[in-house]
């Protein structure tokens, strides 16, 4: 099977992860700009981080046959440093139109402060003005209310519901998101919050339409194989193959494909890996033999 993980922070992951993802059938990923675990102190580090999302990280993923797309934005946590946030937002337009940028994201609320709302609104208006998809991070505390407000503010700012993806949903929030006409993404966290088992029941209850599974794997305890693992569990538990395909591949492709930045035909072709062409002595291949024309497994 092939999988699309539309929310993963590869900056924090190793080549072992990329290799395992590639083997498990993860063909395409989206890396949304996020915070790095501690607040940044100047705009230059944002610029270099965004650059790496359209540069080095894309290059690194390609070496394992994984197509790397990204979303650009100022996250909610760092929006609270208002002076810095102003400078960061001024730089955002430079990166929003780069090749492979499929959305503005991940943006939204964390503590639901005034400063967060200001940055969120600014970015929603920017997205609406340029007809872009928006990836919304929903708060971990006061989630239900936070999601309702995220949707309402997005509407006010002129974002079309077909271009709005609300992430980190659970059983309590999914109905609101689906009712609004937006896409409902679910992050599968090992140990806590949403696990694969709960995801199976959600797809059973709500069906596969506009539901997306992702890993949000980052620098914390998380699993870059969440999407394929959940897909296999769904099949095991009797969810129809088409529903599995929709929630772990096609829906993400349809939602983010609206950006015009995903070459769907190229993605459907069987990828092959040629590290001899791509690798660099200073980069990721150190001494081991390059993998040449090794076809990425598709089943």
């Amino acid at each position, binding site marked *: 099977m092939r999988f699309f993980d539309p929310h993963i922070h590869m900056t924090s992951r190793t080549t072992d992860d990329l290799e395992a993802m590639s083997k498990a059938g993860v063909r395409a990923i989206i890396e949304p700009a996020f915070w790095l675990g501690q607040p940044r102190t100047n705009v230059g580090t944002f610029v270099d981080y965004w650059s790496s999302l359209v540069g080095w990280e894309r*290059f690194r993923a390609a070496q394992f046959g994984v197509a790397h797309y990204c979303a650009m934005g100022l996250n909610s946590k760092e929006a609270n440093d208002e002076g810095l946030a102003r400078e960061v937002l001024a730089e955002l337009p430079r990166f929003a139109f780069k090749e492979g940028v499929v959305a503005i994201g991940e943006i939204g609320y964390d503590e639901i402060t005034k400063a967060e709302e200001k940055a969120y609104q600014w970015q929603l208006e920017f997205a609406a003005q340029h007809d872009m998809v928006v990836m919304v991070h929903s708060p971990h505390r006061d989630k239900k209310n936070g999601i309702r407000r995220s949707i309402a503010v997005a509407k006010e700012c002129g974002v079309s519901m077909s271009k709005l993806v609300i992430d980190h949903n659970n059983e309590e929030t999914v109905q609101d998101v689906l009712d609004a006409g937006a896409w409902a993404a679910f992050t599968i966290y090992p140990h806590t919050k949403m696990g694969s088992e709960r995801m199976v029941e959600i797809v059973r209850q709500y069906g596969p339409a506009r539901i997306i599974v992702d890993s949000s794997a980052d620098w914390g305890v998380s699993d870059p194989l969440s999407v394929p693992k959940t897909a296999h569990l769904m099949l095991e538990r009797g969810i129809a193959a088409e529903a599995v395909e929709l929630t772990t591949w096609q829906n993400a492709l349809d939602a983010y494909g609206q950006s015009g930045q995903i070459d769907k035909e190229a993605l459907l072709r069987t990828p092959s890996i040629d590290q001899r062409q791509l690798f660099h002595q200073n980069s990721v291949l150190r001494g081991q033999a390059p993998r040449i024309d090794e076809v990425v497994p598709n089943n």
Partner: protein
Amino acid sequence: MSSTREYLLRCLEPHLDARAHEWLVSACAECEALPHQPEVRFPTLISLASRKVPAKPLAPTLAQRATAHELVSGWNPERWTVLEAVRAVLVLSRAHLAGPQGVAILDEVFRHADIGELCALYKTLQLLPDNARFTWRAGEGCRSSMSAVYEAAACDTGFPYARFDDVAWRQLIVKALFVGAPLHRVYGLDGRLDEELARIVLDFVEERRSAQRGIVPATWACLGRNGGARARASLLTELSTDHAAGRAGALLGLARAGYTDDFKAYAARGDSDPLVQQALGRALAARPTQDDYAPLFGL
């Protein structure tokens, strides 16, 4: 208006539909009217190009390739894409690029560039007025760990040959061996071989042999007539390996260095490998050039 810009526009003609062409004309007009200091619109137009024109090959005809080399010594647009050509046209249209702020204007674009933009910009450096100003920048490209970026800066351009000092030039060549880049496409290789480069390359060969690792055939293109007895011994050692492309590369190396007796003695030993036969045939006809290493690339 520069002749290289005119040339690129002619190459682009068959590739741009009316809409893309119209966009390019208006974007060029904008570039021509931009102020003398760095600003945000120019980099934005360079980015936007990816959303306006196709990323397919430029595919210049043989005659067009010959013209390119006449316009700018060493320039081979054979592997350029339409998008790269469009970006080059935008750069060549940028007002004040020839002025005292020219480097700052282009630095601003480089600082925020994604992989595709970097490749286009590095390929364009050779076309710029008074391009010695961009020598440091071109050197940065040749330090890149992204192979596509390295190739854009180092291959199919006469810029390094004409502008790099000896240290930068040798670093470029040795790096090509490290990363397995197509050294035969480094313009002017045969014209800038020296004793110091031979020493570095022969040291590198010894390191590889100690680690029991293979040697890229293009290594033997770096010696020319340099390296003396040490080079000859190293070439002869390669002839006793079971790496056919390496033997072929070493035979070309012996012929290039003028060790005709060694070369003929080996021919008499009856190595029937097709790569070796091809190299022997080539070397018997004339002194081999860097181009003769093309069939050995990647082997």
